[in-house]
């Protein structure tokens, strides 16, 4: 099966990074699809936490928002939101934080706040939400975003969430407790930080993607790791599971809602 989309490849690649039993703080959108794909394939006991307070949730369809009722119905427990951030995240009990962003820079710092100046924005984005503290405290962070020179940028318009800051060990000198963005999953492949400089470099390409295409889609001069792996294309099981999940989700979200009386 080779008729997969780049979105599907990204989702599959991200899902593979989760291990069974890992405790994962899930952002909405692509991360949510990846985490649930992992749960439905090789990691049935992954613990999914949404910031709405649903812990250990096992939704049958993907939530449109972070607080859909499906997440509560299938959760091991539903806790108050302040506890999600204090008892789980801040206390260091989350293995993986899964984030999206509008912009990522070469040191894995993220912008989800604003394009243009903060006080005279060109485009106002939603803002931090849970991302700043997820980026600081999850033991490691995975970032997912589609690569363009406007998303992988040399200079963020605003730093919403800290990655490796200025690099070269700067993060380790702060009181951020997690190890930062260990993988950035784009639609051409995966970037990982260089062990010394903390600069994101091309670590693996998706089947069919090229170093040149990766460079063209990156807003800084992208460095390439000594060896660049190739990520195996989605298996039939992965693709079928993901597509069935999306189909169930589409159908559920299309179901007309009767207005309450």
């Amino acid at each position, binding site marked *: 099966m080779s008729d997969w989309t780049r979105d599907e490849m990204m989702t599959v690649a991200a899902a593979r990074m989760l291990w069974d039993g890992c405790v994962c703080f899930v952002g909405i959108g692509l991360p949510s699809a990846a985490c649930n794909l992992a749960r439905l394939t090789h990691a049935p006991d992954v613990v999914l936490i949404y910031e709405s307070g649903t812990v250990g949730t096992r939704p049958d369809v993907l939530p449109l928002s972070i607080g859909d009722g499906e997440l509560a119905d299938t959760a091991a427990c539903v806790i108050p939101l302040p506890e999600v951030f204090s008892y789980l995240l801040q206390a260091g009990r989350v293995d993986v934080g899964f984030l999206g962003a509008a912009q990522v820079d070469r040191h894995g710092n993220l912008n989800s706040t604003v394009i243009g100046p903060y006080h005279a924005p060109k485009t106002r984005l939603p803002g*931090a939400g849970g991302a700043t503290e997820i980026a600081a405290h999850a033991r490691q962070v995975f970032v997912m975003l589609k690569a363009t020179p406007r998303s992988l940028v040399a200079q963020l318009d605003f730093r919403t969430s800290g990655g490796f800051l200025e690099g070269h060990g700067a993060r380790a000198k702060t009181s951020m407790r997690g190890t930062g963005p260990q993988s950035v999953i784009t639609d051409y492949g995966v970037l990982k930080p260089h062990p010394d400089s903390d600069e994101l470099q091309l670590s693996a390409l998706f089947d069919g993607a090229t170093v040149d295409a990766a460079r063209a889609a990156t807003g800084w001069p992208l460095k390439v790791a000594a060896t660049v792996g190739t990520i195996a294309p989605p298996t039939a099981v992965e693709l079928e599971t993901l597509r069935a999940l999306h189909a169930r989700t589409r159908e559920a979200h299309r179901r007309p809602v009767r*207005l309450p009386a």
Partner: protein
Amino acid sequence: MTARVTALSDAIAAHVRDGACVALEGFTHLIPFAAGHEIIRQGRRNLHLVRMTPDLIYDQMIGMGCASRLTFSWGGNPGVGSLHRLRDAIEHQWPAPLEIDEHTHAGVAAAYSAGAAGLPFATLRGYLGTDLPSVNPRIRSVDCPFTGERLAAVPAINPEVTILHAQRADRHGNVAMHGIIGAQREAAFAARALIVTVEEIVEELPPAMNGIVLPHWIVSAVAQCPGGAYPSYVHGRYPRDNAFYQRWDAIARERAGFLAWMNRHVLASRDHATFLASLRQVA
């Protein structure tokens, strides 16, 4: 103080004054839309709105000119995109300038908790590696008196009025809710006055044990308001109308279309039941 069971319009008239600091909470679930619409109908101005996730309801209130300040941590249409009215207010000061007091979820959650606890500030390991403190002077620091560590501090949030929606209340004003509860209890305990709309008022609530109950003596007013959280949802009653959230993107994109929709459905409706009926006509 014992909660008064009253009409929503009376509760808003009595407790929400122009210029007040008001928090409508509910994290995706139990968002008090009916109460927000009533505030719009009563033409409140210069409100300081507080909410972790300004949702469609704040898009509507801001677009209708109710607010002059917003404390928040994530302002979007979940899973859909932007809140166009919020963006228009921030980007183009339409219909009025909007001062923003921007935080992270962890920060607002901690600030509500501090407010609920009667403390003037909250301490957190937060705002690390972010530019937010450079644009928000209300994010400060505090040093641990034992370890010397520097931690972030935010001022407590104590809304003049917190407004929630819940499944049920009894006739004394005790309120019971279940499902995703966000920071609602903290926002409730932090408030000087607490208005709750409910799907149903019953004679007596079943024994709660460890369930979520807001006791009547912290509730200022309870109003029965079936469907009061629509288009958000009420666990066990009705689902979130995801399609409406998607449609809102088009409704709110342009000023004229937004105003026409608000006039037709909110302003022309005398209450939430009429609002819902007006949507049923469209469907």
